[in-house]
Structure formats: structure tokens, C-alpha cells
């Protein structure tokens, strides 16, 4: 695969075709906040924390999730504009108080909103790890929309406790408390 040349926050970066903007940023030490991303897993695009502003070589500007957006020649990326900061602040506020790693950086100390269905922020790390790395599929999402919640398949508690590899991935501790 060939390489493409692009620009992130004013810095030039070369990246292999087929990789993502998030990976390219990481390679030159630019940190983009993420929640549902993990190097061992397929990109998911669910949390939207990693959104960035891009301008394509054709001059088209838009907001995209950097964890799933493929690198391309001549792309210009800005990782923290005011628009992006607003989006990230809103995500933290909506998930409050389940998930706070970036709360301080983004100045969120409380939330206007009612809390969700569970403590879980539905990043899917545990179930994707279980499925993709452990090939085990012990956890799944039940319901859809605002009813969506994680669930263990029946009778999996013991074997899940014995494995426990996904516990450390969980920001809210939901999965450990469930087993």
C-alpha cells in the first residue's frame, strides 16, 4: 500500500493508505479524545468524541469521526476547533456522570440533563472485546434507541468473572458489577 501526505493541526504527516485519521494523528503525537476506541478492536464510530473538522483537497469542509475516516491525500484536519469543543462538551454532559475522563479539560462540572437508563455509557468496548478478541460473544446490547442496554447472555456470570479481561475496559464499572 502506498502512503498519502496530509496535514493535521498544521503539521504534515504521512500515513499508509487504508489507515484512519485518528491513527495518523496518534503517529505524530496528537491526542484526539476518544471513548469507544481501542487499538485491538475494529473502529466503531459510536461515541463521536473523536470528531474533527476536515477540509478535503477539493475544498469540501465537514465534521467527521476521525476513528473511522480514512486518510487521504491532501486532507487538512483540525482536531480542536470551537465547534469541536462544543460537541465534546455536550457528549460529556449527556453522559454525565458515567464517563468523566475529559470533563476537566473541557470544563464540564455538572449536567443539565436527567441521567440515562443505566450507568453504562454504551461504548460497546466490553462486548466488542468479547466478540472480536475473545471470540466469545457473552455480552450483547438489548433493546434499541433509548432502551438500549448491555446484557450478559444467560448463565455467563461465572465464566465472565473467571475471564474478566473486559473489566478494565469499562469506564463505569458496570460490567464488573454485573458478573
Amino acid at each position: 500500500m502506498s502512503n498519502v501526505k496530509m496535514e493535521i493541526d498544521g503539521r504534515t504527516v504521512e500515513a499508509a493508505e487504508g489507515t484512519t485519521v485518528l491513527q495518523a494523528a496518534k503517529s505524530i503525537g496528537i491526542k484526539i479524545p476518544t471513548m469507544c476506541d481501542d487499538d485491538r478492536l475494529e473502529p466503531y464510530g459510536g461515541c463521536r468524541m473523536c470528531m474533527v473538522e476536515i477540509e478535503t483537497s477539493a475544498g469540501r469542509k465537514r465534521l467527521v469521526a476521525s476513528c473511522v475516516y480514512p486518510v487521504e491525500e491532501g486532507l487538512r484536519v483540525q482536531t480542536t476547533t470551537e465547534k469541536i469543543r462544543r460537541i465534546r462538551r455536550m457528549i460529556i454532559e449527556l453522559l454525565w456522570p458515567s464517563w468523566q475522563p475529559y470533563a476537566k479539560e473541557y470544563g464540564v462540572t455538572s449536567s443539565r440533563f436527567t441521567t440515562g437508563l443505566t450507568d453504562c455509557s454504551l461504548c460497546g468496548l466490553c462486548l466488542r472485546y468479547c466478540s472480536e478478541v475473545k471470540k466469545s460473544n457473552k455480552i450483547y446490547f438489548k433493546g434499541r434507541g433509548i432502551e438500549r442496554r448491555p446484557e450478559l447472555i444467560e448463565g455467563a456470570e461465572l465464566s465472565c468473572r473467571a475471564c474478566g479481561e473486559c473489566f478494565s475496559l469499562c469506564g463505569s464499572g458496570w460490567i464488573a458489577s454485573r458478573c
Partner: protein
Amino acid sequence: MSRLETPADLEKLREEIIAGRNAKEKWVAVCAGTGCRAYGAETLADAFEEEIEKRGLSDRIGVRRTGCHGFCERGPLVVIQPSDACFLGAQPKNVPAIIDKAVTGEGATDKLLYLDEDSGKRLGNLDEIPFYKYQKRVLLANNVRIDAANILDYIAVGGYSALAKALSGMTPEAVLEEVKKANLRGRGGGGFPAGIKWETTRKAQGEPKYVIVNADEGDPGAYMDRSLLEGNPHSVLEGLILGAYAIGASEGFIYVRQEYPLARTHAAKALEQAREYGLLGKNLLGSGFSFDVKIHRGAGAFVSGESSALMSAIEGRVGEPRPKYIRTSEKGLWGKPSCLNNVETWAYVPQIIDKGADWFRSMGTEKSKGTKIFSLVGKVKNTGLVEVPMGIPLRDIIFKIGGGIPNGKKFKAVQTGGPSGGVIPESLLDLPVAFDELSQVGSMMGSGGMIVMDENTCMVDTARYYINFLAHESCGKCVPCREGLRQMLAILERITKGWGEEQDLDTLDELAEFMEAASLCALGQSAPFPVASTLKYFRDEYLEHIREKRCSAGVCTALIAYQIDQERCKACGACLRACPVGAVNKSEDKVFTIVQAKCIKCGACYTACPDKCRAVIKVPAYTIQNQPAAAATLPAGKQ
């Protein structure tokens, strides 16, 4: 019946069928779409068959169970061909009279004819009835003329001639060019040019390529795709085959939603019959081109209508959208180039190939060509399916075709584009209906749902209804859509209960902007439109709920109370009998009152009170003393 080996075979078959059909003088076309079936259209069709048999007219008059005629408000519908005499609300008992009329021109059918309120005249012909007169029926026209379960009917009206034309005389590139030139835009909602989508799929690397029909129509109140697939499945199939030929696809799918059993049956039958005649399968019409189609039954999720979610569902996975920075036309089903179009879009293709791109371009506006089917429902006199040229003003659809608002009520708004569309107020009624024009005012074309609302509709409650629908139909994968909808719903419920605060409106605006910018798929990006558009055009109504704790439409139960106007009350006792909780009190001297502490605001007394009295009235809840605490926690919703 034998397999058609060449286009000439098809023409020969067509001539034979037409000759057979012409042997009968008249045809009784009974609408057997889902709506009219619910009215008893099948019994009606049986009655026609019996009566014709009984009178020994079987050689002269035929009965045809057709697809949806469109005027669903007045079903079951019967049309006599070739004169196009139209009977509304026909019942088995009317059958002899209709047959008399068909044979001799005389018959006691006056009550079944359309009554024009302005002139007081009875209108007997399809072209005279305003509902049909102002339409331009291109896609729906054949619904009245054919039995969907019979391929011969479709062939008789010119079916598969476009396919024969393409396979015998046009290269795939020429077919593609014609569709591109026509500028056919996707009828499913996005309005993306179909030709460009086809070209992307054609040029994309990867084999095999797939073509897919999206018949996962899920918008509340919308049934254009259902009626087309039910009433004329071969037109959709022919379009799909033409698309496959142009794109170079060898396999196709029709994704039909679970809730459309008749559409699925008819589509399956169409596939079977097309295969039998050699119009599907290997070596179509001897051209060397092979293509086959499978039906995939949806499992009942609104979000599965989104292209990447739909493809996941066909693959056997959960129907959840995935990021589409690489388009599904390049990498779709099983990672292969896949072209997905809506039912209506595919159905247009045969006509474009048959009559040419210029014919198609002669209809519509500069940027939106052709016609569009809308399902006109809600508070409008003539509900049903209407097909109009793009660019027609909204006012014409609602008032000329739809006949305006029933019961002398005032028009308030029209909601277009399905649950994630927006509402359009009266001041914008002269807006031409076309893709870009609707988007500019904060709504969208969507798949063509059009819900008319009158003065008794509360716009806050309307927004709450749609947000509630979307909150439960979103897949829940991404934070902005799932959490944004959760909070929007909570705020709207607070406002409809009278607990809203003014800053809630700013929060709603902020959430709407955030969801549109940050959501993963089009469902989330357009989900805030019902809130954003009602806030834009009906902000006063929100403020009325918040500041005055008042719902002037009388919809939000927490904000209203029922009362009996003693001056109008005739003491008939209907309200007392209707009340399920004994909240209507009758004093010794026959004075009826409502005991507010017991009232659950179900509205039964309001409905029961005779129209001539209208003594049970709705008043703002704050005007009533001793408001029971329980009322405040009632779920907001319809009265």
C-alpha cells in the same frame, strides 16, 4: 406458457394477451390494496364475480382485483373500464346496480358517485373527481389497470418493453446515460441522483455487484412504497433488472419490511412469474445477461431503512448503521459494490428507458424532475395516495386534491418527510414541493409522507410524538442520537406537563444543532428536525405551555380540565354514562358537574356529549380549583 427467448417472443405474447383482454367489453377493477381489503374489497370482488356469472355476462365483463387506486378515504373503490366510471364506498349490496350501470348505462348508483360540495353535482368519472383531476399519475396509473398477481396484465400495459428495448438495442452504458440524463433523484428521502449512484457502483472494484430495492418504508402514515410494490410489483422488478444491466450486477435483493405481508406476497409472485417467462434468471430474453433476485424480509426496525443498516440486516447481522465514509455504492453488501434505491426510484426506470429522459425531464422543476407520490393523511378531507409533478405548491395538494380541512376547522401545519421531517406553517403553503425547496425551510421531501394538522393539533405534543417515535426507533449506537433524543423527549414531556422552563428552549436548540452535526447516520442527523421546525415556526406555542401553563389546542392533558357548561347542558346524562371513573356528578335537581379530583381526563364525556349541545368543554387546568395531584403525573398525549 413458454419461456420467452427473444424480444420478439415478448411482443407476440403481448399481442395475444391484448387480443384476449379486448374480447371482453368491460372490466370491473376492484381495488384490492391493503386499505380497501380492510373495508371488505375481497368480498366485494367475489360478489361481482358471482353476479356476472349469474347474469351470464362472463364473456362480456371481467373482474380484476387491482392494486391501490389511491382514494383510500372512500374505499372500497370500484372503477369500470374502459370508461373509467368510478364508484366510491361500494358494498356487495350495490353490485347489481353497478353492473346495471356498466351494461345499460342506467342503475341506482348515484350515492356511490363523488359529490362535489361546491356545485352539488355527482361526478362519475375518474378524471372529473378533484382528488384525481389535479394529479399527474405516472407511476400509479397502472395500479388501476392491472392485477398485481398476474404478469400478463403488466405485459398487456406495455410491461417489460423497456427491458426488451434495453437488452436488444442498448448497451449498459446507454441505459446508465439515459438515467443520468433524466436526473432521476432518489425518492427514498435523500434525493441523491440515481444515475450518479449507479455509475459509482458500476465503476467500483469488486465482484459480484448487488442491486437492492429498499421497501422498508417505516414512516408513520406513509404507504407509497407499499402500494406500488403491492399494486405493480413488476414495474419495480423491471426497474431493478434494468439497473442491474446498467451497473453490471448479477444479484438483487428486495428488502420488504415485516409489516407488509401483501407487498411481500405480490413481490414473491412477481419474481416467480418473471422467472417462468425467462425475464429473470439466466440469459434474459436470449441476451446473454443473467440476473436473479431474492426477497429479504425485514425484522421490523425503522432504522433498517438506512442504507448501511439495511445491508447489515441482509447479511444477517443487527440492523445498525455503520460509518459510511466509504459509500455503500463502493463497499456495501458483504463489502461489494451495492446500489440501493427506493421502490419508487426503481419503478421510474422502465418508463424513463421506454419514453426517454426528455419525457421525464419535461415534468417537474429545474432541479427536481418527474412526479412524486405522497401519502396525504391527517386532518384533510380526501386522504389517500396522490401523485403530483414536482414543484406543485403545497396548497394545491392539501386544498385542491385533499379538499381542505374537514369539519370547518382551520389549517395549522403540514408535516412532511416522515418522523424526522419538519412542520411547515400556513405562511409557507405556496412553497413548491421539491427536494431543495423543502430542505430550505427546515423540512424535507423524505419518502413522501404528508400529514396535515388542524387547529386542534398541539405543536409541542406533535414534536413530542415524533421524538418519542425516534427515541425508540433509533438503533442507539451513537451518543448524539441516543442521548440527544433521550433528553429532548424528557424536556418535551416536561413542557407538555406544564413543568417546562424558558431555558429549556435554548437547550432544545443547542441539542438540535449538536445532533445534526455529530450523529453517525442520517436518522440521527435529521432526528431533531421536528423539534427545530416547531421551535422555529411555533415558538409562541412552546412559550404558552411554559409561561401560561396553557395548551390552547386542548391536547396536553396535564394542562386542561373538562367542565360542563351549564347553559348548554340539556341534562341528557350521556357524559355520566360514558365516564369510566364516576367523576360526573348528578345533583338532585339534575345539574351535572365534573368532580375534578376524580377525573382522569380520558375525554370520554367530551366525546359523548352530543354535537348539538357541546356542553362538555375543555378549559385550562389552572382555572380549576382542587387540581388533583395525580393529574400532573398522567402521561402526556392524546386527550
